[in-house]
């Protein structure tokens, strides 16, 4: 008799009382979860499908109600590539995003390394000034930036230059903060051992801290690239000539004429979105973990 009152038996017995209800409940819950999730996932995908499908429709099919093109055509793509500046916008977006991502990867990690591993007078106030700049919305800086760009200290004008589009984002406070958090994990012993071996301070950063922080730097680079690729409000202000537009600015200007060329806009949107989606799908695990880890917003 005494044997039946073992802890595991109590657990099992009580478990059975509730799980009879729970098990069927669980099954129903899972079923409805999958049903709802599938429906929601469908609404997530439909706009992309519509976009791609429209990009293959000839102009006369736009006003018809078919979801998929009846006579699929590549005309929209050749029109967009040959008759608009889209190839240039593509190049501009790419150059700006790569430029600022390289700069952010270097300067943010270097500053993060200093804040994590060095003690110097003024460290706290400098760090606090860096952080408070996060609270100032970019929108407040747009007008001063524009005035500064038209009459900068170096060079004639920054308007319609790659530097002019990129400069607000070449060093970021959020990136410095992220890198500081991560670099605090670099062991001091390793750095001291390096110093004894005669490694320079920059060598410690470059050959010890950076290799140990590659996952964080990678996440920072991905978000920074995405953020710059999709950036809109500053490139809109910093560019006036179509040859210097980035992709989002260019797509926005497509419609300025009286008629809205829906098939061309959808083609431009597809060209701007699809390559990135493929990259994101390939690196999805890394990106999702990066966001969860850092709380960074692209």
């Amino acid at each position, binding site marked *: 008799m005494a044997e039946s009152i073992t802890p595991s038996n109590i657990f099992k017995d009580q*478990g059975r009382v*509730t799980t009879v209800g*729970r098990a069927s409940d669980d099954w129903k819950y899972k079923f409805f*979860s*999958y049903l709802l*999730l599938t429906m929601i*996932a469908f609404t*997530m*995908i439909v*706009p*992309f499908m*519509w*976009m791609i499908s429209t990009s293959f429709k000839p102009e006369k099919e736009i006003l018809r109600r078919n*979801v998929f093109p009846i006579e699929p055509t590549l005309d929209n793509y050749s029109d967009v590539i040959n008759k608009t500046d889209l190839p240039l916008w593509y190049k501009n977006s790419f150059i700006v995003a790569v430029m600022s991502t390289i700069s952010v990867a270097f*300067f943010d990690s*270097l*500053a993060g390394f*200093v804040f994590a591993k*060095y003690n*110097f*007078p003024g460290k706290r106030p*400098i760090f606090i*000034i*860096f952080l408070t*700049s996060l609270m*100032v*919305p970019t*929108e*407040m*800086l*747009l*007008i*001063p*930036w*524009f*005035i*500064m760009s038209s009459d900068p200290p170096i060079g004639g004008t920054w308007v319609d230059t790659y530097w002019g589009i990129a400069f607000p984002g070449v*060093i970021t*406070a959020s990136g410095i903060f992220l890198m500081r958090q991560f670099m605090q994990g670099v062991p001091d012993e390793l750095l001291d051992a390096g110093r004894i071996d005669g490694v320079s*301070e*920059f060598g410690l950063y470059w050959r010890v801290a950076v290799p140990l922080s590659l996952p964080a730097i990678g996440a920072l680079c991905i978000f920074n690239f995405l953020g710059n690729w*999709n950036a*809109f*409000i500053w490139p809109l202000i910093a560019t006036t000539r179509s040859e210097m537009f980035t992709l*989002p600015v260019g*797509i*926005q200007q497509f*419609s300025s004429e009286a008629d809205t060329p*829906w098939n061309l806009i959808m083609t431009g949107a597809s060209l*701007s*979105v699809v390559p*990135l989606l493929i990259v*994101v*799908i390939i690196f*999805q695990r890394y*990106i*999702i973990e990066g*966001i969860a*880890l850092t709380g960074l*917003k692209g």
Partner: protein
Amino acid sequence: MEEQSGLVRTKRMTLAKKKVLWAYIFLAIPIVFFAYIRVYPALFAFQMSLHDYNPLAAEQPYVGFENYERLFEQLGKRKSQTKSAFQNTINYVLLGVPIQLCLALAISLMLNEIRFMSTLYRVMFFLPFVTSTIAIAWVFRMLYQPRFGLFNVILQLVSLPQQPFLRSPQQALPSVLALVIWQGMGFAIIIFLAGLKQIPRTYYEAAEVDGASRWHTFRYITFPLLNPSIVYLLVLQTISFLRMFAPVIAMTEQGRGGPLDSTVTVVLQTYREAFQSFNMGYASSLTVVLFALILGVTIIQLSVTSRRIN
């Protein structure tokens, strides 16, 4: 022996000094950058808001608080573009943030319980978030079109009346909002899922042993323990809705925030004042008010989070 330790000490001293020197060298460019690209322009914006700043005019006279007076005068009027901008922005926040977070929380709770295909769902919910807002806003604009837009095609299939969506002053704001909620939800889902992962499994096992219902488990375990994620997202999403710009400029006729100013936001109004009318002084005063709003939200967050720690 003694000599050697003395040598070590002086060597250490110079090493400490060397480290300080290198710290400043490494930080030199970032410090100059932040001073010139972040701090100075912020102060410049305050200063501009006290001037009648028109870049095309010969002079930018000091006008004191006239721009702010004009702003509040506009807000006091029965109807003005500035008033609509602030009213709409508050509507976007008050409607958008709760709806988006509730949806994201519900989806996260479901996603958290399933194994099969959960990665696939996660990626699908997350794709809109990494997409260019301008591109996808144009896609939604097409979906909302009368006659050939997908939404009206569906309405016709189920024999419901056609809707004007973006062309109606009543429906335009919710239509824009739907896109923004749809696009930003994936981010909230990821943060919620990360928060849910932090909750120890043993709490749920204990609750199950006690025979707690699903609702009770959510109410007394999940919700309180998810609080940090909720506060974090509330602040972040409130700020991002306050700063709304791209979806409105892409989805409204000539980017004007219409029809009848029904979708215009504070940032869009700032953009139009500054870069279309060149009233940069007045526009700066608008951004200063926006800054104050964002600062208020941040301070509330800091006080809420620090109270919890105490």
